[in-house]
């Protein structure tokens, strides 16, 4: 019964989204107030209906209702509660339902907090959200209905893929989707603005919080996925430049560019069509990501079984959505002229270079990801483009970007003197060169590039701190006044400081863990010990352990450095009872300078075990840096100027921007 209610609610939501997608936008065109007024109630109703549908599916999973096909395929009565819930989106059909739920949540959020939006703009934005929902709900109902029944109902299910039975991956899809789908809001705003032919700083101030929300979620989703790959796959790596990973990274790069160009638009009323273009591109890349993950057209190390028919449907949605947006863009963009000019050397210039590099990087990843597909379609053979390509392109593009990231906040709007900025960064510059040489000296001389990478990250970190110091005029005025200034910094600037220094710390982690990883593979018997990276790893015992729905071979390692305190580490190899699928559970011990990482493998005929031991330098820095970046987006969001309904508080804004020091990078 409940399942039927869920199914029916979804069909109702589809029709609701059609009303939401048509009447308000037509009403906005003919200036019919009553039609435009439909936007908000329909958006909220649609959200409610999809929520009912989603809850119904969740209850079916919780109660192990095996008359539902996806419950049979992805659940089991023995499965722990958390994974019964995450099983809802641990499969194609359920994850698409989550997709439209989140789309409706964003629509509902705009409807709820968008009271201060111009009614016509609000009607158009919500209509476009409604049309997106309509397309994706059609997709669900026609190709991937989560409410499909199976008859006769089996007694038990086939269990969720054991790799997905993990806390990291339970939350990875919702966060990632909140990011992907969050970019639908900026897309809707962009398309609505194109229809109106009007883009102004007020529009930008509206778009920025949504871009920030999407960016924050996307960042956490990507990092959580990367963390999962790091500890669950047992390869000791955290990023493989795999198509599925690239699919989430491309929209992230575009969203990062969007976030920054919207600043220029808000502050300087220029880069209008570029910002609109980025908003379209960012969402296009999100849908493309969904296509890549869901269609299985590209071989991926993270591939799941998939159905090509669905891929075609998503591709059609992509072409229609983005094609229409681009036609509109080509037609209306010439209307969007910026009112302010700027010199190449200025903060606008710096942000534009950052945008250029991010976009080129995104395009190069797109090329590398899709090229094998083109070659295949043209029947020129099967190829793959591996990590070396992406590293060879990405690193040289990002290095100048990070160098400029340090400098740009010191430049003034419109026209800047580069020498003034440089002179304020003298100490940061000298220190980071010292770091570069120092690391090069300590480490192997062969890794000069990696040492340079550490130097670059030190530069960004120190430059970001110098910018904060400069902003509060530390040592220039009495210390107490500086502290007062520090406390009065707008949240937006704190956001920048946190995000930029977070990136600096993460870059150090990425560089070090790629360049100086120590790896050792060997056979070990109980009692054997081995030295890796100055630590002694002793295999004390191997036990068989029983989990709730799996059996595990657990190695007990005692790890010590120079006879200091022993740490016990317990890597596992699990066999899940239902699917008989094995998984690896690496044991990880984070230290300040890196992770100790142990994987236990198969048992040999002579009773020994293959073990793989890594020392992964500075990996914890990477996670810490990423947390700072997400924190930065949260802090920025609490900036009073974005308090939703910002346009009404323009007076406040004008006051705060009148102080040039305070306005920096907010």
């Amino acid at each position, binding site marked *: 019964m409940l399942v039927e209610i869920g199914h029916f609610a979804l069909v109702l939501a589809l029709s609701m989204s059609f009303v939401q997608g048509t009447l308000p936008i037509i009403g906005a065109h003919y200036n019919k107030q009553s039609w435009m007024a439909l936007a908000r109630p329909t958006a909220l109703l649609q959200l409610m209906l999809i929520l009912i549908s989603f809850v119904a599916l969740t209850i079916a999973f919780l109660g192990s209702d095996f008359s539902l096909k996806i419950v049979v395929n992805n659940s089991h009565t023995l499965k722990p509660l958390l994974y019964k819930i995450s099983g809802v989106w641990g499969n194609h059909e359920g994850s698409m339902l989550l997709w439209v739920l989140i789309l409706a949540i964003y629509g509902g959020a705009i409807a709820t907090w968008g009271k201060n939006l111009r009614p016509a703009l609000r009607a158009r934005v919500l209509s476009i959200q409604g049309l997106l929902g309509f397309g994706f709900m059609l997709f669900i109902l026609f190709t991937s209905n989560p409410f499909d029944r199976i008859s006769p109902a089996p007694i038990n299910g086939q269990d969720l893929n054991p790799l997905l039975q993990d806390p990291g991956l339970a939350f990875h899809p919702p966060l990632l989707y909140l990011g992907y789908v969050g970019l639908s809001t900026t897309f809707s705003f962009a398309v609505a603005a194109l229809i109106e032919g009007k883009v102004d700083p007020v529009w930008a101030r509206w778009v920025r919080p949504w871009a920030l929300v999407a960016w924050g979620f996307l960042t956490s989703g990507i990092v959580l996925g990367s963390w999962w790959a790091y500890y669950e796959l047992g390869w000791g790596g955290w990023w493989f430049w795999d198509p599925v990973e690239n699919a989430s990274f491309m929209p992230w790069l575009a969203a990062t560019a969007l976030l920054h160009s919207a600043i220029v638009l808000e502050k300087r009323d220029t880069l209008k069509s570029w910002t609109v273009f980025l908003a379209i591109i960012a969402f296009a890349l999100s849908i493309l990501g969904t296509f890549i993950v869901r269609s299985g057209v590209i071989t991926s190390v993270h*591939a799941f079984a998939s159905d090509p028919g669905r891929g075609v449907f998503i591709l059609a949605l992509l072409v229609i959505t983005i094609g229409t947006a681009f036609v509109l863009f080509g037609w209306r963009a010439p209307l969007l002229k910026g009112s302010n000019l700027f010199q190449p050397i200025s903060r606008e210039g710096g942000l534009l270079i950052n945008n250029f590099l991010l976009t080129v990087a995104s395009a190069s990843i797109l090329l590398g990801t899709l090229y094998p597909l083109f070659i295949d379609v043209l029947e020129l053979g099967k190829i793959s483009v591996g990590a*070396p390509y992406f590293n060879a392109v990405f690193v040289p593009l990002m290095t100048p970007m990070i160098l400029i990231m340090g400098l740009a906040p010191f430049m003034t709007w419109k026209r800047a003197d580069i020498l003034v900025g440089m002179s304020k960064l003298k100490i940061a510059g000298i220190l980071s060169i010292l770091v570069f040489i120092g690391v090069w000296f300590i480490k192997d001389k062969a890794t000069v590039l990696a040492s340079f990478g550490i130097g670059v990250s030190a530069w960004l970190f120190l430059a970001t701190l110098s910018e904060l110091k400069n902003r509060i005029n530390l040592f220039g005025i009495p210390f107490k006044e500086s502290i007062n200034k520090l406390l009065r910094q707008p949240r937006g600037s704190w956001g920048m400081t946190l995000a930029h220094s977070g990136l600096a710390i993460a870059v150090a982690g990425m560089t070090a863990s790629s360049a100086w990883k120590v790896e050792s593979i*060997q056979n070990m018997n109980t009692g054997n010990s081995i030295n890796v990276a100055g630590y002694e790893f002793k295999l004390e015992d191997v036990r068989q352990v029983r989990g709730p729905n799996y059996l595990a071979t657990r190695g007990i390692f005692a790890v010590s450095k120079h006879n200091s305190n022993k740490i016990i580490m317990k890597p596992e190899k699990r066999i899940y009872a239902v699917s008989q699928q094995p998984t690896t559970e690496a044991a990880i011990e984070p230290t300040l300078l890196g992770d100790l990482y142990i994987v236990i493998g198969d048992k040999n005929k002579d009773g020994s075990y293959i073990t793989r031991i890594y020392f992964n330098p500075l990996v914890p820095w990477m996670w810490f840096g990423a947390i700072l970046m997400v924190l930065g987006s949260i802090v920025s969001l609490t900036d009073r100027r974005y308090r939703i309904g910002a346009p009404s508080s323009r007076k406040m804004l004008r006051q705060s921007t009148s102080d040039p020091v305070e306005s920096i990078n907010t």
Partner: protein
Amino acid sequence: MKPKNKRLSLIVATMTALAASVALILVAFEDNVVFFYSPSDLLKKRPGPTQKLRIGGLVKKDSIKREPGVTEVSFEVTDLNNSVPVVFNGILPDLFREEQGVVAEGRYREQLFYATQILAKHDEQYMPPEVAESLKKSGKWKGPVELEK
């Protein structure tokens, strides 16, 4: 500088940057495109010993061998017409099994494929498209359902 010259120099700078990026991408591409071979292709075309490539097929039944005391594992990848011996040093992906699809990346030297990476699957139902292709080419494709067994 006159505004006109300034604009010109800006355009030149942008174009140079763009050209540099394109050059960077092309050079990286040239070096890093990895071709895929089925075992039959590999025996026919015989790529050079330094060329990085991928092979794919099924892990041949009873071909997985581990010598005591070494971590190296050897097995054969087959498209059911021809097979290629592979050696790999490391821990195999969890879903690596006999008679299952596999994709290996590495180099082919003296009749032996030295794998540097074995691609993992996350899902038992999944068959890499290349492997399906290999089997179709050798005429042994029976559809995904039967291959699971």
